[in-house]
């Protein structure tokens, strides 16, 4: 059959002839479309939340910025630790993306021209380094420096903290800052950022007490939303020692931050959230910077510690540990060289709270109080000092080899007669002395608000000796030694200062504090000594300050009560003499208690001892505090 297809003309308006198989294709396409729409709908309706959060994680980055730390003031509102501006020149690596790419292609082209096959990974690293070094060279040229960028640092920053500024030069001096401000165009990728570094207006003063900070990303999250987002943290500061460490949470600022939307490769393009960081709380400490500086000057180059405490409140007015270091050299970071220097002179140790020393003759006060409380001695007890005392088979000498002759308690304290206290101690027994020392809290840390206060102070007794020396017994000689503060006894200068304060206030323990107007009420236990007996101790100390061993701590018109001590130890294998002074003033209604400890090698100074070396330092501090 010859069927002729109908002839169609362009102007014909006939319905098109559709092949039936086309309907099948339409059907398949239709079903596919339906499936697609259905799938899309399902994902939109049911899995929307999951997708949204996943997209959010991919599309947003959170940058946390710590707030500036609070200021530390002394009791008179003088700034002890402040913040200073820290200017740095930085580039944002994510803004250099185009330049990295261009440099990459340049390197590839050069290598190909040389017939080399470029390695993609290493070429990228080289490209990034070249670009950043180019900006560094611009700075070098402006500042006449010769800095090089570190490829490893760039790579670490690029992969881990792309949205944070990459520092080219940290801590620009004022002159360089001004030069860059004037000569780097505003639209340059090099930006000059202002940050914060700790600033210590008094340099070395109270270095161990104030402490230092170091860069850290350990700070609280704050109230910036989006904790599920990928977060970058700008470096903040964390207290590493002293008050900066102890009150770190209080001083630390409130964290602020930003959320940026980023493209799939992590490059930022729009800021969507911004929260300004807030400043940390200020801190007013009990230190009096005038007294502190005076005490440090009085110490000069000597090694040791001075602690001055306000008796009524227990507030520490000065806490000196020498040798010291300039805190400004530790900010914004501690260089290797500075660390070495401080280490070499042994200045990291806070001798006031971490240094352990035998207290020497100062401990005679504990022996005296114990003996009085136990009734071993009374106001009328007189002991003859021939210059030595035989305990067991050994002769224990007095510091005056010719002897003091008959001495009562007051005289013995005034003259610091060893024989008197050997006698008291051996009659009282070791437990009597040890328990008395413990009543004065001498076996435990004072609890001052400083990290690292040692807990290894030692008030020995037979049990301790047996455990320490494999069952070795306690001898009479040990008791004799302990009664004059020698032997195994180890205490810190701050303990001796609290001890002086507790005697001045007639209590067993004055808890020291570094906070001014500390609302925490102190409970103080009475000394437990009849007033007439306590008067003997005080009179002995007054006479020691007036014309006895501690006379150099006072002066006419400024009587002080005190007790000196001189102890021998071996430090680093060398014999070292410790010169001690503890005391308080004024004699009536005492307000300030002081402990001074100086480490020294006797050959270097004639007349080395508590009275001649430590007492004059205490005198200068008393003068400053009492305004005399």
């Amino acid at each position: 059959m010859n069927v002729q297809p109908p002839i169609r003309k362009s102007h014909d308006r006939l319905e098109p002839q559709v092949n039936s198989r086309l309907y099948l294709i339409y059907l398949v396409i239709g079903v596919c479309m339906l499936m697609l729409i259905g799938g899309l709908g399902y994902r939109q309706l049911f899995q929307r939340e999951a997708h949204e959060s996943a997209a959010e994680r991919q599309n947003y980055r959170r940058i946390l910025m710590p707030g500036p730390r609070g200021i530390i003031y002394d009791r008179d509102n003088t700034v002890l630790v402040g913040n200073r501006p820290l200017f740095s020149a930085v580039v944002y690596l994510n803004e250099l993306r185009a330049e990295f790419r261009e440099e990459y292609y340049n390197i590839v082209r050069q290598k190909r021209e040389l017939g080399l096959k470029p390695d993609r990974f290493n070429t990228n690293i080289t490209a990034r380094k070249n670009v950043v070094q180019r900006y560094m060279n611009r700075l070098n040229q402006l500042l006449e420096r010769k800095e090089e960028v570190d490829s490893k640092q760039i790579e670490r920053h690029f992969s881990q903290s792309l949205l944070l500024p990459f520092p080219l030069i940290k801590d620009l001096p004022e002159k360089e800052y001004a030069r860059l401000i004037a000569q780097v165009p505003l639209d340059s990728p090099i930006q000059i950022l202002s940050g914060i570094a700790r600033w210590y207006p008094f340099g070395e003063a109270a270095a161990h007490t104030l402490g230092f900070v170091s860069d850290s990303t350990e700070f609280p999250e704050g109230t910036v939303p989006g904790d599920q987002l990928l977060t970058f943290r700008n470096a903040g500061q964390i207290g590493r020692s002293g008050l900066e460490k102890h009150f770190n949470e209080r001083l630390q600022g409130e964290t602020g931050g930003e959320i940026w939307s980023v493209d799939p490769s992590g490059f930022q393009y729009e800021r969507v959230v911004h929260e300004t960081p807030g400043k940390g709380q200020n801190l007013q400490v009990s230190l009096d910077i005038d007294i502190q500086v005076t005490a440090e000057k009085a110490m000069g180059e000597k090694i040791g510690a001075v602690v001055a405490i306000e008796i009524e409140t227990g507030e520490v007015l000065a806490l000196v540990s020498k040798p010291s270091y300039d805190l400004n050299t530790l900010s914004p970071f501690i260089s290797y060289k500075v660390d070495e220097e401080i280490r070499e002179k042994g200045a990291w140790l806070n001798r006031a709270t971490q240094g352990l020393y035998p207290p020497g003759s100062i401990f005679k006060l504990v022996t005296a109080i114990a003996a009085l409380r136990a009734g071993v001695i009374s106001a009328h007890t007189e002991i003859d000092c021939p210059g030595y005392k035989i305990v067991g088979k050994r002769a224990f000498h007095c510091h005056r080899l010719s002897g003091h002759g008959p001495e009562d308690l007051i005289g013995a304290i005034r003259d610091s007669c060893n024989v008197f206290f050997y006698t008291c101690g051996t009659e009282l027994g070791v437990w009597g002395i040890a328990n008395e020392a413990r009543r004065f809290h001498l076996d435990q840390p004072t609890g001052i608000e400083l990290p690292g206060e040692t807990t290894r102070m030692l008030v020995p007794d037979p049990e301790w000796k047996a455990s320490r020396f494999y069952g070795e017994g306690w001898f009479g000689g040990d008791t004799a030694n302990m009664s004059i503060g020698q032997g195994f006894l180890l205490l810190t200068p701050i303990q001796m200062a609290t001890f002086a304060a507790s005697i001045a206030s007639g209590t067993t323990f004055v808890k020291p504090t570094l906070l001014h107007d500390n609302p925490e009420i102190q409970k103080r236990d009475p000394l437990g000594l009849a007033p007439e007996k306590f008067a003997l101790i005080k009179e002995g100390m007054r006479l020691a300050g007036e014309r006895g061993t501690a006379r150099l701590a006072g002066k006419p018109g400024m009587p002080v009560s005190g007790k000196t001590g001189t102890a021998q130890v071996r430090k680093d294998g060398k014999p070292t003499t410790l010169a001690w002074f503890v005391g308080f003033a004024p004699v009536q209604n005492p307000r300030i208690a002081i402990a001074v400890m100086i480490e020294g090698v006797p050959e270097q100074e004639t007349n080395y001892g508590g009275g001649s070396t430590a007492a004059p330092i205490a005198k200068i501090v008393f003068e400053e505090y009492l305004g005399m």
Partner: protein
Amino acid sequence: MPRNLTHQAKSLLLVVLLLLLWWFTPSFVKRGTEVIFSEFQAPAWTGMSYLKDLRSYWTNWGSSKEDLISAGMNLSRLNAAYVVRNQQVDSMERELRRLEGYFNLPSYPEYQYEVARVIKRDLTAWWQVLVIRKGINYGIEPGQAVIFSGGVVGRVQSVGAYTSTVELISSPHFRAAGHFESDDRPVEFRGGINPGLRAPTGTVSTVPVDLVASRKDPVRLTSSKLGGIFPDGLTIGWVYNLEPSSDGLFQTGKVMLDPRLQSLREIAVLIPIETRGDPGR
């Protein structure tokens, strides 16, 4: 070109072609055209400036003899006063050198003043520039300081053969180091957005918190030699109010600039003496 396209479509096609051509033009060609067009129109601007000079010359020509005599007398008085001032400055400079030597202070570069006429002012919202009638022919280089009797004007932005463009301190892209009078700590000055019909302003930031400024007791912001561009102590502007910045470390404030900046006719470019080449004059 296809014949059946409309006039608009053909124009669009042409523009697209031109833009494509522009896109693929090497940058040195673009830079070349920039220089050519800039240098080409420079004589026109310069010529117009000379015309203005001529106009003011003829205006003066028409002044009465009495006016000219009194103006001449005023000028001679002013000159006499300046001669005395000059002597004082000389002796102070000697004293300064002596003290600098005594304290071993680094000496800062000295400048030669190149006075130039302003031939064009472009004070828009986005940029604030002046074109001056001296260029490479007078040893002017980009980055050099520009001043006037009231203080800092700005910085040379680009230099042509016979003209230079100066970016004013009121320009939003201008940044310089300054310091407050009687305080030598550097602060950052930036030009600002200048609302119309008002005196220009800028902003100052990184101001130490111990500095105080009030409407009653404004402080003068001056240029800082530390920046390496301007000599020390030239007035940038006055600050009437300082507010603490968000981090509490610094203060920021608005700087009121000299209103004369917008009507300058003559300025001086500071050319560091050691870098000055032979201008061939």
